[in-house]
């Protein structure tokens, strides 16, 4: 047991309070644009931290987060849309019965989004975890695509390619950051628990983990479903932030963005995932200028849409070649380190 446990807990709580105070200031003083970016950051933190649990901590290279985000988005959106809105949206085929009449509160829809995503993960896990390594990557990628194809074709549930419109914009800074804080806290607890230890053991050496009596299959499942739950919730928040969803939103592209985040942050580090999620979201906005027309005085460069993704792809390849550890490696933020650096001695 860390002798500074109590101090560290107090510092964590204080840190959270400071964060909430800063958010309050941003929410009241900041422009719509700032608030929008803050909301995006919170949702990306939820998605990246939970994605990191299966990919980084447990070492199972899943490429299916887009499937869980999609399921979460659709579930929560279908549950909060009013029957009238559904009737307007579903013009080709009417919405099927129980969905067509129910409207539930936002929070219930978010939990439902997480639960449905977790159930899907459970079902997927049986075949998926019979494979390993790059085969697991391809199989999960396949599942991600299948979910998107299904979303495109089940007209009476998802409204097909038209997608869902007019979703209420319930997601605000408190919902988004509230869930981000809960996600980081719960997943952090899980990683530090004996379950987390077992997950790390699976990552480093599966055979050795089995030899010391760890049920590797069960721990992979646990990481996968937990991760899917939070990705589902994140999807629900996303749907109620952007208010219009359609299958094209949930292609492999989304997975790619999350992958860059957790790789840049360092596979296996929650702290890294958080920092990289902030940098990615903010950086994505800051880099917008490269896609805008530029007038350099002597030369006119027309806008180049897509340039940002070129930059991100190059960054990903460069990280893999030169800095495989990412920002944090597998290290985590901890108060002992901060206090030592600040010269505040604790008991050791």
């Amino acid at each position, binding site marked *: 047991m860390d002798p500074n446990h109590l101090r560290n807990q107090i510092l964590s709580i204080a840190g959270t309070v400071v964060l909430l105070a800063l958010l309050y200031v941003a929410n009241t003083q900041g422009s719509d644009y700032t608030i929008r970016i803050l909301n995006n950051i919170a949702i990306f933190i939820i998605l990246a931290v939970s994605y990191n649990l299966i990919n980084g901590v447990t*070492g199972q*290279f899943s490429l299916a987060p887009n499937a869980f985000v999609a399921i979460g988005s659709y579930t929560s959106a279908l549950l909060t849309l009013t029957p009238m809105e559904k009737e307007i949206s579903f013009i080709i085929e009417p919405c099927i019965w129980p969905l067509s009449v129910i409207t539930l509160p936002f929070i219930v829809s978010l939990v439902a989004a997480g639960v449905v995503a977790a159930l899907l993960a459970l079902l997927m896990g049986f*075949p998926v975890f*019979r*494979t*390993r*390594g*790059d*085969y697991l*990557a*391809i*199989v999960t*990628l*396949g*599942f991600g*695509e*299948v979910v998107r*194809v*299904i979303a*495109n*074709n089940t007209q009476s549930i998802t409204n097909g390619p038209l997608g869902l419109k007019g979703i209420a914009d319930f997601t605000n800074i408190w919902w988004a950051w509230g869930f981000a804080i809960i996600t980081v806290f719960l997943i952090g607890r899980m990683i530090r628990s004996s379950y987390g230890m077992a997950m790390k053991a699976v990552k480093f050496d599966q055979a050795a983990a089995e030899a010391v009596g760890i049920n590797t299959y069960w721990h992979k499942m646990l990481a996968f479903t937990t991760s899917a739950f939070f990705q589902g919730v994140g999807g629900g928040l996303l749907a109620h932030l952007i208010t219009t969803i359609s299958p094209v939103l949930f292609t*492999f592209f989304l997975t*790619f963005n999350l*992958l860059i985040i957790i*790789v840049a942050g360092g596979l296996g580090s929650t702290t890294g995932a958080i920092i990289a999620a902030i940098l990615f979201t903010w950086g994505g906005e800051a880099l917008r200028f490269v896609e805008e027309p530029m007038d350099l005085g002597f030369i006119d460069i027309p806008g*180049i*849409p*897509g*340039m940002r*993704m*070129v930059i*991100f*792809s*190059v960054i*990903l*390849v460069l990280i*893999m*070649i030169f800095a*495989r550890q990412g920002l944090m490696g597998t290290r985590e933020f901890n108060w002992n380190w901060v206090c030592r650096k600040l010269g505040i001695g604790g008991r050791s």
Partner: protein
Amino acid sequence: MELTFFLQQMINGVALGSLYGLIAIGYTMVYGIIRLINFAHGDVMMMGCYFAYFGILMFSLPWWASFAVALLLTAALGVLMDKGAYLPVRNAPRISALITAIGVSFLLENLGLVVFGGRPKGFETPDMFNEVYEVAGLMFPALVLWTPLLTLAILGIILLIIYRTKTGRAMRCISHDMETTKLMGVDVNRIISITFAVGSAAAAAGGIMWAMRYPEINPLMGIIPGFKAFVAAVLGGIGNITGAMLGGLLLGIAEILLVALMPELAGYRDAVAFGLLILILLFRPTGLMGTKLPD
């Protein structure tokens, strides 16, 4: 169901399947030799199409010259990709190599979007492939006949390279045991680059025929055929070139028959490949002809 209808669909399936097979060869060769799923392979195919397109349009080459130049350029791109991105991560964990491949794939797609623009471009099919033959009530567009023939020819050339040349022997050695091959004085990196070149050229050939089939090209066109070709490679047993071809044919026929026999399920066409992939990995992970166990 009428026999002619069935045969017609089978011919279509064989033509489509040959294309999957051609693209699958590149996957299977690279995987066989360095155990890397080259995610960017479908995008290499896309680049091949654009090379051919620009060859005809901008340099007004005759189509055959343009196709030949496109194959060479795509082979060069494959080598460049290997030297630039995959060589530096060759001794890294396999997942790092896979992430690099995903990065290269997105790089090619987005460079395509930036340089060529996102709007699809019409691909001009040479007149020779546009004719339609009619034999015993069956319609054969020339392209549908030429595709399997050309595919067989390319397959033959690649098999010759692998089983009848020194380079090919080195490839087979590396896939067996890279370290020992190095000790025998083989320039392993050169052989791997050649593998990338051959695989990329085959993908370009497949891509050009794909482009003539649909006749249009866009920077994201490689994604779906790329994934499906990978499935074909696994289906045939990854590392096995003839297997990749058979896997491609099987996948092409299955897909065409699904659409022909159950048109109401046509929307699920793209899911067929992945369904097949999951089934194979569950029940026969070595593939239909495979000798190597996937990890």
